[in-house]
């Protein structure tokens, strides 16, 4: 049993990716273990999205190796990644705003009964399950039938996460889940991220907010222009240092010096 949990769920070794002449990612090492939150920090254009796209199966890496459960893998599509238990919750949430909450919850993994051509959705069961799952994470919707576009951003984010967890994700990739949210809504999401890790999921938390990363992360990775500039455990770094690194370190010093009056 113990070697199962020691084995990283996902491991990247020296992974790189280029688009034409542009080197988007180079020499990235990253491990995701069950029950851990790995934070990937970086400014815009640092290569965070490219990294997610590789792990979630949207793009193939062209250098290095990607291991899932210790086996070398290369995903051809997001479905491939999903089948390996790697689910991604994108910044833009991957929800369809005009569709009801429960339909969004089960989208792509609908519950059906009966034989074709009479195979039908188990509407009542789906509504009930979606409602129960959401209540578990503290989201009480007056109406599970309401279009998902009508609930708040934090709640939508949590629906997306709850959906991934419910459908058996082992690794959860969260693409800037708090970027567009206010302080209170961010709290809702962060609390749920921590809860997901406690349930034994491996979480990759992409963010450019060092405060959020420091609150939930076990491991910090900083990307800058496609390269890793920091790779350490939470206990090896202080929030101030992380913020400093994140903000560009020396560059920030120079800037603050320049702007000081």
């Amino acid at each position, binding site marked *: 049993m113990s070697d199962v949990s020691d084995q990283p769920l996902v491991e990247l070794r020296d992974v790189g990716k280029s688009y034409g002449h542009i080197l988007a990612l180079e020499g990235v090492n990253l491990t995701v273990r*069950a029950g*851990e939150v790995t934070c990937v920090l970086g400014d815009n254009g640092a290569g965070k999205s490219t990294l997610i796209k590789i792990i979630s199966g949207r793009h193939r890496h062209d250098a290095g190796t990607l291991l899932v459960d210790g086996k070398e893998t290369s995903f051809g599509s997001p479905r491939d990644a999903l089948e*390996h238990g790697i689910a991604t919750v994108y910044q833009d949430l*991957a929800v*369809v705003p005009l*569709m009801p909450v429960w339909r969004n919850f089960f989208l792509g993994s609908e519950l059906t009964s009966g034989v074709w051509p009479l195979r039908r*959705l188990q509407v009542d069961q789906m509504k009930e399950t979606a409602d129960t799952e959401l209540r578990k994470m503290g989201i009480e919707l*007056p109406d599970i039938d309401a279009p998902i576009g009508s609930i708040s951003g934090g709640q939508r984010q949590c629906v997306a996460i709850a959906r991934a967890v419910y*459908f058996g994700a082992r690794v959860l990739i969260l693409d800037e889940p708090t970027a567009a949210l206010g302080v209170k809504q961010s709290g809702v999401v962060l609390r749920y991220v921590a809860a997901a890790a406690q349930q034994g999921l491996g979480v990759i938390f992409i963010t450019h907010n060092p405060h959020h990363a420091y609150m939930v992360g076990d491991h910090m990775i900083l990307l800058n222009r496609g390269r890793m500039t920091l790779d350490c455990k939470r206990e090896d770094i202080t929030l101030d240092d992380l913020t400093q690194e994140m903000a560009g370190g020396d560059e920030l010093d120079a800037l603050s010096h320049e702007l000081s009056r």
Partner: protein
Amino acid sequence: MDTNPQQAGPVATGPQPAAKASSRRSRAGAGEAGPSAAGGAAASDQVRNVSRLRRFLLRPEMGSLLGAVLVFLIFWTVAEPIRSLHAFSTVLYASSTIGIMVVGVGLLMIGGEFDLSTGVGVITGALSASIFTYQLSLNVWAGVIFSLAVMLLVGFVNGFLVTMTKIHSFLITLGMMLMLFGLNLTVTKLITGQVATSSISDMDGFALGEKIFASTIDIGGMPVRITVLWWLLFVAIATWVLLRTKVGNWIYAAGGDPEAARAVGVPVTATKIGLFMTVGFCAWFSGMHLLFAFDTVQSGGGITNELIYIVAAVIGGCLLTGGYGTAIGAAIGAFIYGMTTQGIVFAGWDSNLVKFFLGVMLLLAVMMNMWVRRQAEKG
């Protein structure tokens, strides 16, 4: 956060969502540190009832239903002859001839795409069956099957090109429309030497085809054209598919946000190609009605009908941008069209007014749709 093997154990056992989900559910149910209630609105019964009523009024087909009642009342008042059962039967027939097409077109629009090749497509369907049968002196049904294959292929090509090239379906199907229009005339002239096909009414299998695609049934003293029954059946099937099947979920998602749908594993490309082929099927069916009702087919017809189908679907509450609408709404849109065309005839007005009326209703419907959509998004 330590890694508890007890927890990691079941998680690592292969992809079996259902089993895994249930084990996780029980674990979460056992009261692990879940996030406490936050950001949730209070769920009082009153809120629930108000939002239910509101959503009922905001259903995609409510606007068109209102429109249908209004149009019905107008013609009931101004055109006395329309009050008879017989006249109502004519209205239904007119509605059904375009309504069958509108089922497919409406589904396609909900799926976020557009088809301009439908009008001439119906003619292509009829022509290919007729010419195939006549030239090879076969049973009419060989032509009927051949035509089905042709129309499914046309739908497939439309869908394939749209999904592969990612060019807007407006342009792809505009190209298809022009190609079909040209081929309809050229091939017919080349093979028959005329612009219309020869009569096939004395050939084997025609009687059965007529019975299935173009007969009239007496229901309680009201003569009902069989296309009306087919129309209702197709609307019922489309409604069931949209609301009660996986594919229906995919259609709404493909139209509402294809990227989001793809990200959660919905086969968006297959769904869209399937929708184009459904439109092809409807065009085939309408073409068969045309063939068996009129025996000979004019090769230059059909053009501008595609716009009527789209107008009917939009009046019925289907959003032009996709992701919203119902098959019943589309049917009501077709009914409004049927009632307007026939009502104007019965009222003794200039039949050119039909287009004017359609235009007015389209504008009203579009504005209504926009408002409904905004309200629906607000919840």
